């Protein structure tokens, strides 16, 4: 979920409404666009707003947010109109970029009053778009330049890293492209995007001046925006044309909302011989149309709205109407509403405009039979028995690490499922047995009154080639007792009672297990199936966990026990 920062005074000004810093009122308004005030820094006048919809980048600037809200407030109706005048600015795209970063979109915006809040807002929008819909600049990245320093046509091409050097934004020395990737903070952060290819994308003007090294960094000469800048060139490069153009549209529209006048650019995609194989005009402010069925709308909402009523609600939601008849509304979807993929997206807007809290709730009784999972009953019984034996139930994480599961247990590593991207060193894999979780718990309770008796009924995960997910989960019960006189007999006696009350005949067979004392550990067997083990924990293990009292424990597979029972 993106969180956007907007200046409160800017928001009020663009909204054309005085809210007297009433956050509750603002929250109520923001709910229409799924926004929520997270923080209001009154000293700096900055509002942090969480936007739940990850698919509505049109709302991620003060301009866009107020554009969306003004309709719901009845201050505007339907889509805003945006225009870009045609100019002679051309961008020639090198065919060698095809497998690198093939797409670009450009616009020129003149006469913007770039006050400090406007610049900061623009940077913030650029950053949000780069991070979210731009997938951390992988899919799209935005560059903004002082247009008066640039001589079109612009050349977007793939270069050999050794051939080019320039002064990157925020630096004073010329650097080669490889130096930028190694030394510039943005190079370090985003270098991996270009490093995959031998050639790097570059933007030049017709005089060979460098605009930027997309998606890494602008040139310090042309790409530094200040309050003195009046005419801007906005450019978006990326891997998917639709997103590239949409992103340019959003940034350009925000600048138009700030009083700028937009001019389009022609993008010439060249083939290997330099001939133009396709030309595109950007930005693209043309709106789509989408038919909305009146019947479908009412079927989903459970309402009985007429086509006319639907139209009214659509306008409140900032959508346009092209044509209406009794059964269908031809909806004009503004270019900035990239989230609209299906009629249901329009129907939700109708519902929001209608007001969720104005819709009746229905609870229909249905002829369905409720049922807990098949294992639930045996889980309940097992827990009852353990509680009856005086053991306290605990709940622990299934994420653990190999040190806890094997090293500290004096055990050889056995098959288990590791994470490829652990976040912390203590959580690197899923547990394959429960006892380590109990040992950890006990080690955290050394100062609590003894005797301590605990149990957990929980899942373990094991690799299993035959399963769809190549793993299976099993339900195990593990219990541990610890006090000055805890021993094998006590644990076996509890295990014996547990089995007796389940009506399952338990056999204890000799076995060796490095986590337990030799000769004081047995495997639990039902029929001819091994179902677990019981024993007195090896003092080596106690030492590893810094435990000072003997521990006796058992761990058994609940499913296997019950399977044994039915046999």
């Amino acid at each position, binding site marked *: 979920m993106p969180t956007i920062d907007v200046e409160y005074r800017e928001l009020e000004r663009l909204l054309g409404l005085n809210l007297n810093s009433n956050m509750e009122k603002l929250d109520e308004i923001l709910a229409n666009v799924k926004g929520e005030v997270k923080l209001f820094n009154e000293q700096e006048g900055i509002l942090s707003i969480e936007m739940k919809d990850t698919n509505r980048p049109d709302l991620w600037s003060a301009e866009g947010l107020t554009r969306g809200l003004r309709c719901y407030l009845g201050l505007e109706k339907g889509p805003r109109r945006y225009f870009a005048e045609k100019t002679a600015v051309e961008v020639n795209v090198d065919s060698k970029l095809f497998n690198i970063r093939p797409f670009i979109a450009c616009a020129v915006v003149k006469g913007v009053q770039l006050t400090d809040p406007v610049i900061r807002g623009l940077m913030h929008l650029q950053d949000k778009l780069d991070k979210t819909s731009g997938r951390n600049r992988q899919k799209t990245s935005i560059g903004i330049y002082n247009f008066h320093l640039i001589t079109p046509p612009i050349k977007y091409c793939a270069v050999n890293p050794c051939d080019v050097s320039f002064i990157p934004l925020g630096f004073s020395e010329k650097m080669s492209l490889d130096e930028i990737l190694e030394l510039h903070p943005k190079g370090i952060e985003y270098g991996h995007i270009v490093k995959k290819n031998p050639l790097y994308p570059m933007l030049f003007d017709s005089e060979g001046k460098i605009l930027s090294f997309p998606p890494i960094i602008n040139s310090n000469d042309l790409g530094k925006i200040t309050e003195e800048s009046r005419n801007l060139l906005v450019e978006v490069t990326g891997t998917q044309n639709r997103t590239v153009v949409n992103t340019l549209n959003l940034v350009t529209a925000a600048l138009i909302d700030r009083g700028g006048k937009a001019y389009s650019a022609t993008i010439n995609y060249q083939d290997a011989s330099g001939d133009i194989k396709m030309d595109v005009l950007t930005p693209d402010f043309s709106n789509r149309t989408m038919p909305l069925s009146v019947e479908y709308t009412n*079927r989903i909402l459970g309402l009985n709205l007429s086509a006319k009523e639907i139209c009214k609600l659509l306008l409140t939601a900032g959508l346009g109407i092209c044509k209406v008849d009794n059964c269908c509304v031809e909806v004009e979807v503004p270019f900035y509403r990239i989230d609209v993929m299906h009629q249901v997206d329009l129907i939700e807007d109708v519902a929001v405009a209608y007001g969720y809290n104005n819709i009746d709730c229905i609870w229909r009784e249905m002829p369905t039979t*409720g049922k807990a999972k098949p294992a639930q009953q045996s889980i309940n019984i097992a827990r009852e028995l353990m509680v009856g034996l005086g053991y306290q139930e605990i709940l622990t*994480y299934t994420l653990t690490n190999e040190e806890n599961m094997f090293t500290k247990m004096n055990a050889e590593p056995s098959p288990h499922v590791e994470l490829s991207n652990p976040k912390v060193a203590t959580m690197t894999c899923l547990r394959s047995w429960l006892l380590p979780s109990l040992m950890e718990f006990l080690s955290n309770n050394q100062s609590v009154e003894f005797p301590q008796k605990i149990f957990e009924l929980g899942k373990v995960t094991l690799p299993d080639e035959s399963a769809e997910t*190549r793993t299976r989960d099993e339900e195990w019960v593990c219990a541990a007792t610890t006090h000055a006189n805890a021993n094998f007999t006590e644990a076996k006696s509890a295990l014996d009672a547990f089995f007796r009350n389940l009506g399952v005949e338990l056999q204890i067979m000799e076995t060796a297990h490095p986590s337990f004392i030799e000769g004081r550990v047995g495997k639990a067997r039902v029929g001819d199936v091994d179902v677990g083990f019981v024993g007195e924990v090896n003092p080596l293990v106690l030492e590893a966990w810094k435990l000072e009292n003997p521990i006796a424990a058992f761990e058994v597979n609940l499913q296997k026990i019950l399977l044994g029972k039915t046999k």
Partner: protein
Amino acid sequence: MVELRTQESQLLSALQEVGGAATVEQLIEKTGMQDSAVMRIGLTLQEKTLIAIHAKHQNVVKLTAEGEVYAKSGLPERKLIRAVADLGGSADLKKATERAGIEPQFIQIALGWAIRKKWALYTSSDNTLRIAESFLHQAFIPDGADEKLFVLLAEKNQIGFEQLKDDDLKEAAGQLKKRKILLIEPKTSRSLQITPEGKAAVAEAKPKVQEITQLTPELIITGKWHTSKLQKYNIAAPVAKTWLGKKHPYLQFLDEVCTKLVQLGFQEMTGTAIETSFFNFDALFVPQDHPAREESDIYYAKDPAFGDISQHAEAVEHVRETHENGWTTGSTGWGYKYSLLNAQRLILRGHGTCLSARTLEAKKFQVPSKHFSIARVYRPELIDRTHLSEFNQVEGIIVDENLTLKDLLGVLGKFAIEIAGADEVRFKPDYFPFTEPSVELSAYREGYGWVEFGGSGIFRPEVTLPLGVKEPVIAWGLGVDRLFMMRAGLEDIRMIFSQDLDWLRRKEVT
């Protein structure tokens, strides 16, 4: 008549027998009771006005640890002079001290005092020590006042300074104090005196029945308890804590939720912690390059890394087309090239919705149908008071013809009342990639305030149609962790997986 316990009457009688007044020490000697017992019983008797206790402050003389050694072996000068006598009344200092067994650091002390007490003469020119003329022909040198004091102290352990009869002894005490052989310290000594009421009580005292604390099998079998008295207990006294076995409070709460949902006609779905990206994301119309699928947002399994989705070939194909171009769902689709490999990538499920997707795809149900799951889910979050890296989600689906947003709101309202015990509910637009419209539910409960309790929506056609489901499907999820924390009065979400045994032991069962 005053009721007296066995020990009370014993002490009172003893006091009467010694003449009506005695020190605590005398009574200890008389009764054989412990010091503390005499004082404790004495205080109760005083409360009953049967005796009076008088305190007297005085100085007492007491041996130090060093003094106790000397009390046994004799003062060093005594040992020295004994050795000289044994060596014939005159001896080399070195020989004499060796024979006396005096350690080097005490030689000067022993020599000094032997001379000072005029027991011996020392000539330094030949290092010779001679017993003084006056004692030379006596069998032994008589004990000095200090040594007499030793004898008294050895008998009594401590003596009141004023009780020392001779001035000699008093002077000796002062001297030995300087030698750090004894201490003179203030002490309060108490004496007990019987009152007229006490005398009357003793006179009235009848032969006592035996008082019993613990009733034993022996007393019952022999019938002795008939002639005994079972002592009254102080029933208000604190007792040792008993820790019993209990279910975990959070799991018990989940049990309750499960029972409610079963009562409302929902069937439980299950699955494994490891899931394919296909069911966790693709089937839910989450595009393959969505930020929620980045390594910072979902855990990936290392080995095994890829699962098997071949059994779902038809659904996979329809999902692929839906992502790429919308297929026949009426959607524009995401417009990118779908990767089958990406779909097979194994992850730790990030939500329980993958189970709903599996249920819909398996189609082993008759419409209408209601399902729920209580699933452990995983997110690569740093754990703090508001975040966990793994937690439980309760969610589910309802499949029926003609389900509408009204039903959705109705279901949420029902949950709010049945599960959260809400007095009032409120709905807000919400966002999930797989539902449209989407609703957030807030529930109000007296004493708890508003709490965001659930998220819900109608599955997008891009989700249901590729899985082969034509009917509308309501999908819902409940914020059970928050609800539990509210009920249990917790502010730190980590307490759900509390490692604190004491907290679990003390937590009341609700």
